[in-house]
C-alpha cells in the first residue's frame, strides 16, 4: 500500500465521497470542540488576548509536517502526488489581507462559520450567506480581474525548492519557530491579562 490512497486507485470516486464525509465529520467535530465555533474566541486572537487559534493552527501544521516527512521517509507516502496549489504571489498576498480583515470584522473564516452554524449561531449564518454572495460577485467580476488573478505566477513551489535547503532542515526550523511562537503566545496572554487587570 502506498498513499495517497485515492491517487493510487485503492478506492473510486464514489467511495472517496464517503471517505470525505467521514473526514469532514471528524474535522468539524474537533473544530467545534476546540472552541473554533465562537466568533468571540476567533476575534480574540487578533487582539492577542486569547492565542488559541494560533496555537491550534501551528500545532496542526507542525504535526502534519512531521507526519508527512516520516511517512514519506519510510516509503509509505509518495509526496510528489500530494496536491498543493500553485503560487501566485501578489494576488495571494492581497487575498490573504482581504480574508484577514473579514476574519477580524466578522469573527469567522469560511470553515469556522460552517462549524458555528451547527450550533445555531445567527451571526455565522449571516456570515456564510455573505460569503456565498461574495463568491457570486467574484465569479461575475472574474473576467475583469483575471489578469491580476494570474499575475506573478511561481508555479508549484515549495520552501525547500525555493531556498535550496533540505526538507528536514525546513522541518526543524518550523518546529523551532512553533515552539518559540507558543512561548511568546503564553507570555503575551499573561501580559494582556495583567494589562486588563491594571486598568
Amino acid at each position, binding site marked *: 500500500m*502506498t498513499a495517497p490512497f485515492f491517487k493510487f*486507485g485503492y478506492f473510486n470516486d464514489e467511495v472517496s465521497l464517503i471517505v470525505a464525509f467521514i473526514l469532514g465529520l471528524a474535522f468539524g467535530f474537533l473544530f467545534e470542540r476546540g472552541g473554533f465555533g465562537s466568533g468571540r474566541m476567533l476575534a480574540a486572537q487578533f487582539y492577542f488576548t486569547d492565542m488559541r487559534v494560533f496555537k491550534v493552527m501551528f500545532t496542526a501544521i507542525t504535526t502534519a509536517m*512531521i507526519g508527512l516527512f516520516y511517512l514519506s521517509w519510510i516509503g509509505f507516502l*509518495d509526496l510528489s*502526488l500530494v496536491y498543493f496549489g500553485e503560487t501566485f504571489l501578489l494576488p495571494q498576498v492581497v487575498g490573504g489581507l482581504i480574508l484577514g480583515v473579514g476574519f477580524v470584522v466578522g469573527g469567522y473564516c469560511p470553515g469556522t462559520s460552517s462549524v458555528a452554524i451547527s450550533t445555531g449561531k445567527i451571526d455565522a449564518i449571516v456570515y456564510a450567506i455573505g460569503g456565498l454572495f461574495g463568491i457570486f460577485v467574484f465569479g461575475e467580476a472574474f473576467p475583469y480581474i483575471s489578469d491580476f488573478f494570474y499575475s506573478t505566477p511561481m508555479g508549484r513551489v515549495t520552501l*525547500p525548492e525555493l531556498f535550496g535547503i533540505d526538507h*528536514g532542515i525546513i522541518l*526543524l526550523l518550523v*518546529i523551532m519557530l512553533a515552539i518559540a511562537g507558543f512561548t511568546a503566545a503564553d507570555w503575551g496572554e499573561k501580559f494582556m491579562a495583567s494589562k486588563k487587570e491594571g486598568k
Partner: protein
Amino acid sequence: MLKVYAALPPRKRIGILAIILGILAAIIGAPENSTTASVNIKELSMTAGKNVNTVTVQELSNWIIQGKMDYRLVDLRTEADYEEYNIPSSECVSMSSLTNSELMRNEKIILYSDDDIIASQAWFILKSDGYHSVSILKKGMEAWKNEIVFPSCNCGEHSTAELKQLHDKKAEIAKFFGGAMQAVDGSNSAVKKDLPKLKAPKKVVLKTSRKKPAREGC
C-alpha cells in the same frame, strides 16, 4: 533522564519530542531517496511474466484510434530515432532520466523500444521505484512497423469473406497511421526489403485530448 522527562507537563514533553524529531529530520535531509530503492522480490516475481504487463500493438492502435488517452506512452529509443518516427501520442524519455521524468507513480505507463529488452529493463526500474501500473508494448517498434503501419497479409483473392474483412480492417488501420498494406506474393520473398522508407505519418489529430486532471484543493 527518563524520569525527568516523565515528570514534565505533557505540553513540554510533546515539545521536546517534536524537537527530537526535527533534529532527526534535519540529519535525514530529504524524505525521498531518489537513487536507491528497495524491491519486493516476491511481489515483482509474481507479476513479472504475466500478460497483465504487456499491451499488444493491436490493442494500442485501437486505443489511439478511439482517442483513449488514459495512459502515457513512453518511447525509450534515442532522440534521433524518436524524431525520425514515433508512435502517435508517445513521448521520448531516455532510460537514464526515467525516474526523474514527469511520469507519475499512479499513471498507466506503456513502454516501448525497438524490441522488448530495453523496455523490460525500464519496466523493472519503474516497478522498483514504486510505479504501479507499468506495461510493455509487446515486441515494441518492430511489431508496430510490421503489424500496424505496414502489415502483410497473405489472404489472397480466393480467401473467405471473414479473412477479407480482416484484411480490410488491417488496411484501414495501416492507412490511419500513414502506412499501407504490403502484398505478399506466393513466392515468399522477403517483403521487408521493399518496405517504403518509414516516415512519420501526418500529425494525427486525436478527437479527445489528454484528460485534464480534475481541479483539486480547497
